[in-house]
């Protein structure tokens, strides 16, 4: 067994026992990247030299008695988390040369705990997409089947964990961008409650929906990452000042006494039969372990895509107004007037999907349309939140598919934005309601493509999600599984 094949928890045991150094671990990941990344395209920016330096420092610190939670563990970051002195592109040409002068809070936390940053990972431009195909710096490939999408927007964060390039990664989830690629790539992905993790230093897409979370090859490693990144941060006024539990303690055997809700709207038309079978197997595993299964209803599910694709673009149109070619990012130097400089810099710098969402959002917020679109969507958002509140009076956790289908071929739907938007139907509601959601591997389709099972819980009950996921993982035996490449 090569060092990169271990889970993070296993690697930490070996590091502590002195059986392995961080340098060996990091070199093993770098060798793996060298071998597979020309096919998988997980990385936008790889900094192997800096990683080895960090690894040596971690080895030195361990000798001095440091016991950082991630000490010596090589990991990767979605390329929208600001990293001091390390290029952060957001997958966009407009930020192709942006070198942040500061670290995001989660990056600070990772450094404080001794994590070794290998580099920055591929993603849809500004996190707008469901396949990572809008990335301006290479499109990641599904590690399980050549020619299939990795999912998105945090595509590289999923592929790098699934293929053994990184032990864990961070991504962000605005409408499913952690859970969906996790499902399509066969890894664990967790979107925490809105406010659980600081967004300071996360390049904003839709600020009332964005949340940072971990990817890993088993549930225990996601719990460890949650222990590192959770908590209040005065620099993010929407982060919540609330005690952070030890999430690793949540991983208890059995689910006796838990009520698991099955939302009937999530099993409707368009659900692939193989996906249904895999999720039903997950339900059976929990039932056998003593969970009570109850059917619940989320009646406004059919409206969630319409709500999401108004609110997210509206917020994006405002957030992305900052890319004007003045203080950083791409500038069209030929423009003679300030107005033309703004327009040309943005028109050359942004890709088609980003422009599309900026236009929808600007339209929805513009005079005369605000009430019909943005306000209406925000009212229906209240109804969606109400659906979840009622459901969680009847159960502790919801179980469902993450995506209606396994991964699809690259190039499909790229010119049909609405079809692609509709594939997000099972994930966007959690963001609108601000609740935590998770994808845990459930099985494989007959074509050999992974399928995840989604768990959603009440605000701040990541511990329940982790416990349930841990028990599903015991039942499927898929924990720690790597794609064979």
């Amino acid at each position, binding site marked *: 067994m090569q060092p990169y094949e271990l889970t993070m928890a296993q690697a930490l045991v070996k590091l502590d026992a002195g059986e392995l150094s961080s340098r060996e671990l990091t070199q093993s990941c770098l060798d793996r990247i060298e071998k597979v990344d020309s096919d998988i395209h997980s990385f936008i920016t790889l900094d192997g030299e800096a990683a080895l330096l960090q690894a040596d420092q971690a080895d030195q610190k361990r000798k001095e008695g440091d016991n950082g939670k991630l000490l010596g563990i090589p990991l990767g970051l979605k390329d929208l988390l600001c990293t001091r002195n390390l290029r952060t592109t957001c997958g966009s040409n407009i930020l192709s040369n*942006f*070198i942040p*002068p*500061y670290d995001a809070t989660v990056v600070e936390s990772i450094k404080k705990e001794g994590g070794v940053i290998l580099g920055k990972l591929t993603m849809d431009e500004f996190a707008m997409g469901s396949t990572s195909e809008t990335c301006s710096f290479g499109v990641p490939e599904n590690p399980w089947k050549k020619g299939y999408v990795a999912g998105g927007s945090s595509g590289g964060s999923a592929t790098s964990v699934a293929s053994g390039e990184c032990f864990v990664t961070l991504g962000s989830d605005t409408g499913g961008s952690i859970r969906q690629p996790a499902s399509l790539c066969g890894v664990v992905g967790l979107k925490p409650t*809105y*406010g659980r993790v600081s967004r300071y230093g996360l390049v904003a897409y839709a600020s*009332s929906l964005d949340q940072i979370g971990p990817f890993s090859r088993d549930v225990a490693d996601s719990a460890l990452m949650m222990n590192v990144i959770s908590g209040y941060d005065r620099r993010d*006024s*929407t982060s919540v000042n609330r005690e952070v539990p030890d999430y690793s303690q949540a991983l208890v055997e059995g689910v006796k006494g838990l009520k698991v809700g099955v939302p009937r709207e999530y099993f409707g038309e368009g659900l692939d039969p193989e996906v249904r079978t895999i999720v039903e197997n997950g339900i059976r595993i929990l039932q056998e372990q003593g969970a009570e299964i109850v059917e619940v209803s989320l009646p*406004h599910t*059919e*409206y969630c895509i*319409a*709500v999401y*694709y108004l609110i997210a673009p509206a917020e994006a*149109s405002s957030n992305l*107004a900052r890319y*004007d*070619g*003045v*203080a*950083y*990012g*791409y*500038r069209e130097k030929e423009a*003679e*007037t*300030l*107005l*033309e*400089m703004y*327009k040309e810099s*943005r*028109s050359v710098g*942004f890709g*088609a999907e980003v*422009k*599309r969402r*900026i*236009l*929808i959002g*600007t*339209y929805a917020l*513009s005079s005369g349309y605000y009430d019909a679109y943005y*306000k*209406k969507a*925000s*009212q*229906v*958002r*209240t*109804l969606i*939140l109400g659906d979840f509140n009622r459901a969680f009076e009847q159960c502790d956790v919801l179980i469902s598919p993450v995506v209606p289908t396994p991964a699809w071929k690259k190039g499909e739907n790229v010119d049909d*934005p*609405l079809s692609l*938007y509709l594939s997000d139907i099972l994930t966007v509601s959690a963001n*609108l309601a*601000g*609740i935590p959601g998770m994808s845990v591997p459930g099985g494989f389709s007959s074509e050999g493509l992974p399928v995840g099972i989604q768990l959603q819980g009440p*605000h701040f009950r990541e511990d329940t999600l982790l416990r349930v996921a841990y028990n599903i993982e015991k039942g499927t035996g898929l924990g720690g599984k790597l794609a064979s490449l």
Partner: protein
Amino acid sequence: MKITVEEVLHVAHLARLNLNEEELVKMTGQLDTILSYVDKLSELDTTGIEPTTHAHNSVNAFREDGVVTSLPREESLANAPEENGEMFKVPRII
């Protein structure tokens, strides 16, 4: 049609984007499809329902009005497409 070519041009100007002829036609068609779809929301009577702009009912978060260090000027200017050591430079305005 939910949206016309003229409206898309107007919105593009508000968003400070230039669209060439081909982009304009394609974008108008795609925006029309998307806006027709989101019209689905009009099926719901939302009279009297408070809008949710934020998943938690958070109130404004204030911090102390204290002096803290900010980024040094040199670092603030380091990513600028054009600067003169003290300020960002842009095309002449007046």
